[in-house]
């Protein structure tokens, strides 16, 4: 097996016993990129020189016996994370030339853990999308079928892992933007609890929902990444000062006697029958692992998409007010006065989906409509969270499909925003409630497209997610395929 196809824990072993160098690993990743990147387009920007220098430095550390959790491991960063001195675009024309003067906290943490950064991964503009088609830099393609979308918004982070163009990656998840592309690309993706991972240096989309998390090739790697990412940050006032366990200890433990909630609202008409079949099979595996499935109800599930499409655009319309052509980013040329400069810079700088969401959000927050939309949505959000509070009195973990269908075709939903929004129907509730969720590969459709199963747990119970996902992965024995590129 090539080094770029390996997991973090496999490479750590090889680094420790001297059978591979960090430089060899990084070189194998870049030779894979040379071979497939033109077709997949996982990256907005590659950082080859920095990566090779970091790998060389890692090899010096390794010689000295200084081996950290991610020493020499090539990692891709979603281009929503600020990287000091390296252009950070958020997939948008309006930030195409933005060079952050500081690093996001997770970038600092990964650097301190020895990671080698491969590049900045493609994404939907400002993380608004479910297909990575709204990127100003052009779409990312699903490595399992280049005619199809990889999911989104963290599509490039997912495909970089799936196509072995890195070992692991970082994404962000506001309504499913880690779990949905993870499912559609056949990799593991975790959205941690709101407040678990610092968002300092994450370009804001919807601040009450955004969370950073990892994409990995298996569940053990997910635990390794969470050990690096999680924790309180005084620079981020919504990060929670709570103890962080060693997530690796949950790998390989059994789940005997655990109660697994199966919410009836997630098994509705309109789901692709191949998804239903794969999830039924996953339920059987969980039962073989000793889990006891119980029927539960999350009665407000059908309102999640509507709540989300008020709250997320409302927060986005406020967060994106800062892009005005004054302090950074794109400014329209040939404007005579200030108001015209704002309007023209934003017209030329933002794409259609971002404008649409700014419009919805501005409308929902405008005088006379606030109570009808934003307040109403925030009240229903409270009911959705209460559904989960009640459910977790009856079960340890909830099991659902991650997506209603496998990857759809490029262009299939771009003219119908509402249909695009509905592809997040199973992932949005997690962000509204602030709970953690993980997507794990659970099989393939007959046409060979990956399918994911989602596990949800209560606040700060990422350990439980690692434990059940690891037990599932070990016992499901899903055939390990690689996309034929």
């Amino acid at each position: 097996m090539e080094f770029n196809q390996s997991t973090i824990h496999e490479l750590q072993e090889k680094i420790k016993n001297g059978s591979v160098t960090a430089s060899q690993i990084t070189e194998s990743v870049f030779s894979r990129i040379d071979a497939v990147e033109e077709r997949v387009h996982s990256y907005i920007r590659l950082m080859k020189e920095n990566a090779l220098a970091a790998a060389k430095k890692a090899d010096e550390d390794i010689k000295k016996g200084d081996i950290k959790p991610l020493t020499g491991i090539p990692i891709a960063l979603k281009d929503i994370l600020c990287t000091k001195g390296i252009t950070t675009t958020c997939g948008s024309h309006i930030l195409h030339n933005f060079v952050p003067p500081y690093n996001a906290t997770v970038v600092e943490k990964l650097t301190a853990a020895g990671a080698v950064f491969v590049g900045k991964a493609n994404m939907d503009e400002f993380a608004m999308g479910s297909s990575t088609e709204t990127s100003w830099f052009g779409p990312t393609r699903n490595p399992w079928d280049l005619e199809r979308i990889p999911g989104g918004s963290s599509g490039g982070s997912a495909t970089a892992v799936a196509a072995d163009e890195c070992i692991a990656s970082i994404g962000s998840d506001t309504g499913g933007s880690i779990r949905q592309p993870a499912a559609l690309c056949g990799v593991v993706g975790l959205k941690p609890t709101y407040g678990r991972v610092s968002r300092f240096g994450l370009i804001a989309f919807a601040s009450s929902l955004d969370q950073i998390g990892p994409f990995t090739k298996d569940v053990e790697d997910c635990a390794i990444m969470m050990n690096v990412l999680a924790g309180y940050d005084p620079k981020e006032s919504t990060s929670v000062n709570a103890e962080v366990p060693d997530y690796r200890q949950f790998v390989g433990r059994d789940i005997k006697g655990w109660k697994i909630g199966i919410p009836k609202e997630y098994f509705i008409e309109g789901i692709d029958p191949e998804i239903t079949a794969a999830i039924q099979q996953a339920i059987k595996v969980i039962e073989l692992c000793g889990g006891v499935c119980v029927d539960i109800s999350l009665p407000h599930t059908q309102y999640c998409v509507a709540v989300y499409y008020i709250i997320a655009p409302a927060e986005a319309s406020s967060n994106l007010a800062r892009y005005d052509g004054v302090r950074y980013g794109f400014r329209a040329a040939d404007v005579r006065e200030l108001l015209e400069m704002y309007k023209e810079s934003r017209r030329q700088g933002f794409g259609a989906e971002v404008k649409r969401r700014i419009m919805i959000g501005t409308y929902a927050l405008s005088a006379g409509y606030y109570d009808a939309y934003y307040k109403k949505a925030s009240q229903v959000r409270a009911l959705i969270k209460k559904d989960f509070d009640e459910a977790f009195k009856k079960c340890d973990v909830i099991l659902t499909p991650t997506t209603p269908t496998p990857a759809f075709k490029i262009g299939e939903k771009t003219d119908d925003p509402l249909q695009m929004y509905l592809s997040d129907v199973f992932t949005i509730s997690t962000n509204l409630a602030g709970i953690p969720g993980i997507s794990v590969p659970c099989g393939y459709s007959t046409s060979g497209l990956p399918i994911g199963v989602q596990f949800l747990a209560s606040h700060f119970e990422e350990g439980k997610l690692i434990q059940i996902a690891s037990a599932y992965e070990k016992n499901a024995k899903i055939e390990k395929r690689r996309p034929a590129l």
Partner: protein
Amino acid sequence: MKISTREVEYVAHLARLEITEGEKEKFTSQLNDILLYIDKLNELETQGVEPMSHAIGVTNAFREDKVIDSIGTEQSLINAPDARGEFFRVPKVID
């Protein structure tokens, strides 16, 4: 109709977005579809439900009132489309 073309124009102004005639029509139709979908929230009785604005029960996060290093003027201006001296330069605001 939930939202008219005139309202779309007004909202675009509030959002400081210049939109073309074509976009006006497209946005009017798409926003109507989305707002009609969102109307399903009115099926629910929510009187007396406390609106939720934060997923975790964190209230004010205070820190010690201590001066710490910041990025400084030079770094702050490094991305400016038009900087002069210590300032961001913009087109004229008043005649």
